């Protein structure tokens, strides 16, 4: 077979008719081949992301339950019911607090940690491995580790604080059993889990700054803080934004930390939208209401997607 590149083939085709075989076979036509190679993935994504997403929306305006076999359209009754449910508002507020506080901490601590491990030092490999552990270990199992650390009777935190005389008298916090402490605890675990990812993303951003810029700043006599706020931070702002967006998505939609540590308690003080949707939709069997609750995650995801698209468009131009 003496077939050559597609461009050459089409150039020849204008002069002499190309062999019929090659013209017909779709694998030889670039735009057709592209569609054929893409089709399985696109079909799969439409069938297993797009279709269920559409179903989630239609359940939210229906009376679907785990046992029911037919759906009836009930309009916005489920939403009206949710809006009157104090637990829902509490979950929404908790989800915002949980996400907001943990992600501010993650970005600030991530930047500090990234600066601390940026330069080479002996033992960097092992430090990096240890720092990455929380992100790479399955989160449900990491949370179990924290469940033991926060144990009401055998908490190592309480034991150590008592041994160091930080806790005196009868002071013995029940980390997961007191509303404010429970929220602080799940925030701590979420920071623990997402800090490694933010750190490595920020590190990637820092190493993409050309060395010339640092050199020029040093020649100009910029000190540490001036360098940090005038040069370093503005240059890595887009990448920190990426780290923040992923952190927001992962935290706002997460139910594992809450499910393992508190099951939303005590008194729904750590209930978030994702966990409330699970307890209502799956354990409570009320698929319609559960779907309606879970869809309140979506506006945040749309906002995140818009920011992403803006970043993508900007880099496309340059």
């Amino acid at each position, binding site marked *: 077979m*003496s*077939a050559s*590149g597609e461009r050459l083939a089409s150039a020849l085709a204008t002069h002499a008719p190309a062999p019929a075989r090659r013209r017909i076979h779709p694998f*030889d036509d*670039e735009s057709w*081949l*592209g569609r054929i190679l*893409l089709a*399985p*993935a696109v079909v799969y*994504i439409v069938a297993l*992301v797009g279709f*269920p*997403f559409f*179903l989630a929306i239609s*359940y939210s305006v229906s009376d679907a339950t*785990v046992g029911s076999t037919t759906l009836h359209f009930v309009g916005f009754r489920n939403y009206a019911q949710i809006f009157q449910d104090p637990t829902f508002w509490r979950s929404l507020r908790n989800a915002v607090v949980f996400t907001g506080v943990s992600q501010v901490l993650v970005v600030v601590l991530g930047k500090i940690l990234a600066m*601390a*491990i940026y330069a080479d030092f002996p033992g960097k490999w092992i*430090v990096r*491995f*240890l720092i*990455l*552990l929380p992100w790479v*270990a*399955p*989160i*449900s*199992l*990491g949370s*179990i*580790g924290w*469940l*033991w*650390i926060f144990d009401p*009777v*055998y908490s190592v935190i309480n*034991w150590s604080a008592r041994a160091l005389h930080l806790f005196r008298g009868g002071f013995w916090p029940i980390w997961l059993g007191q509303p404010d402490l429970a929220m602080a605890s799940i925030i701590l675990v979420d920071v*623990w889990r997402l*800090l*490694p990812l933010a750190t*490595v*993303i920020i590190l*990637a951003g820092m190493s*993409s700054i050309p060395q010339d810029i640092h050199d020029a700043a040093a020649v100009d006599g910029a000190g540490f803080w001036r360098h940090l706020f005038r040069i370093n931070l503005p240059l890595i702002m887009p990448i920190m934004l*990426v780290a923040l967006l992923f952190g927001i998505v992962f935290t706002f*939609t*997460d139910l*594992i930390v809450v499910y*393992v540590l508190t099951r939303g308690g005590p008194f729904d003080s750590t209930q978030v939208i994702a966990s409330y949707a*699970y307890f209502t939709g*799956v354990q409570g069997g009320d698929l319609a209401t559960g*779907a309606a609750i879970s869809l309140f*995650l*979506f506006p945040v*995801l749309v906002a995140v*997607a818009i920011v*992403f698209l803006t*970043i993508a468009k900007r*880099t496309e131009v340059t």
Partner: protein
Amino acid sequence: MTHRPLIIVRSLKRTVHMLLLAAFVAFLAFPFYWMAITTFKSTRDLIDTTHNPFLFGAPPTLDNLRVLFFQTDFGRWIANTAEVGVLVTLITLLLAVPAGYALARLSGRWGHRLGIAIFLTYLIPPTILFIPFSRIVAGLGLQDSLWSLVLVYPSFTVPFCTWLMMGFFKSIPRDIEEAAMIDGLSRFRAFVKVVVPVSSAGMLTVVIFTLTLVMQEFVYALTFITTSAHYTVSVGVPTFLVRGDVYFWGSLMGACLIVSIPVALVYNLFVDRFVAGFTVGAVK
């Protein structure tokens, strides 16, 4: 005389640096250290509040691991996870590698938009999809079957891996397949015979991520699987070993450690690529 304060400043800086690193490492790695200590303690030692929890008050024991391996389905859960992982990896490779190639080479502007659209589907979380999926899975008669996971897991691995492979193929010089096509291969054959073999590094990344994402997945497995014999490890450990009032802390911590450390070791080698996949477009 003038360089003396400089030395002090420098050693002060180094001390602050080391303290900072030590604090971060202590925070991030402590739970794993704690799992390791708990795994080898006898139950009586664990629950004696007069004992220093950092030390062994009684001789170390392998009892907890014996319970884990011989009195729970832990081995079964690991086998289940491996089975699902292998199948999902195969599906992901079959779908994501051709799609990534098509997006990198065979499509113009619409390909760029489609690529971003595929990436954005990664943002639709399991927490929105698990409710409709629970009915789809029931409708297909796959409740409590590992096949439900094999069907559903590619929904989060395929978008991300397609995006990763697209970035990878863009980094391969076009000359490779153009030379092969001048030698008489069709575009498709050039892709299969020339491009795929030089892409083994990219495909290995896809394999690692798919396997680790499968190991980490929790929500779907929790929703679809109801019997211990069909649990994956990430759901089996927290639901089976934390039921009722009796917690087998030693066995629990052992399970967490045994699963986490090997995954962490492998993942550690690939984390830079993972980050590159996340930040394609934001960092060049």
